[in-house]
């Protein structure tokens, strides 16, 4: 079963990218994981129908910044689409070179891409092209979109804030002996 699934995935990928673009890894139990990278988001439009045709199932899509903390001036986002075919996992990573990043929607082929796409759109401010229902999914209106793009300023701001206030209250609430007063961590 595994081999058939691997073959049909390889076939689908090679139709778009040529052979050799797909690499395989496996875990201790012999489960196979395929890895593909697409350099242009448009290629997604040609690979998605092929994968849908061979019966693959979209598991989820992960968007991320190339540089987690935005420290290294490394711009750009990537999206990894994870497909499953009979127990074989293929991860198709798509680089999004544009600013703001944009990506075509694959909801026409994979019904369940809907939520996944809306989610990364709101978390990373990625523009969806051709999505039937591009509303917010989880984020409150009070929060800015693309919140994960600004993880650094946020985390430094908020991390400090609530933990420190709470700990100040803990330190203040405890009837502290002389030795414990003042001081800093």
């Amino acid at each position, binding site marked *: 079963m595994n081999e058939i699934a691997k073959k049909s995935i390889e076939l689908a990928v090679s139709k778009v990218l040529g052979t050799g673009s797909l690499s395989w890894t496996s875990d201790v139990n012999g489960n196979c994981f395929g890895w593909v990278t697409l350099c242009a988001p448009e290629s997604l439009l040609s690979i998605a129908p092929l994968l849908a045709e061979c019966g693959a199932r979209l598991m989820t899509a992960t968007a991320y910044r190339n540089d987690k903390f935005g420290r290294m001036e490394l711009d750009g986002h990537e999206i990894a689409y994870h497909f499953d075919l009979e127990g074989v996992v293929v991860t198709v990573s798509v680089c999004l070179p544009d600013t703001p990043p944009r990506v075509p929607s694959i909801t026409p082929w994979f019904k369940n891409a809907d939520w996944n796409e809306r989610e990364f759109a709101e978390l990373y401010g990625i523009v969806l092209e051709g999505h039937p229902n591009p509303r917010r999914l989880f*984020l*409150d209106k*009070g*929060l800015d979109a693309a*919140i994960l793009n600004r993880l650094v300023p*946020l*985390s430094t701001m*908020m*991390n400090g*804030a*609530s*933990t420190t*206030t*709470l700990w100040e209250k803990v330190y203040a609430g405890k009837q502290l002996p002389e030795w414990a007063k003042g001081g800093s961590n």
Partner: protein
Amino acid sequence: MLQLLCKLASRSPWIYRINAGSCNGCDVEMATTALIPRYDVERLGCKYCGSPRHADVVLISGPLTLRVRDKVLRVYNEIPHPKVTVAVGVCPVSGGCFRDGYTVGADIDHYIPLDVIVPGCPPRPQAIMEGILKAVEVWRARLEESVCCHS
């Protein structure tokens, strides 16, 4: 006489449960505590009610996410006085694991006064019962206060 009345009244604490964005561990345990024969809080006079307007003791779980905050506050305000709040689990107090998340405004205390806290992740049903009993004490004191003020 009034005190006796308060004492009797406090033997019928009706419970209402608010989920303020918890991981549902505490909620499952609250449901377990409130509804199953093993713990049977009904023998303490508790009843689990579906409407906030019938409640006396409010059990809150979860770190109060931004999106649920207004709704929780609205429901909380619908509960008639006198009422007592029990924080189940550590999330309402400090946010627990979720503190510092961008949708978690820790410090539920700022919006809703927490009268009793039951730490645990999630606390076991017996601990929740202990919390409810503590809450009933607080509630009785509050009742006596309000009744005495009226008379």
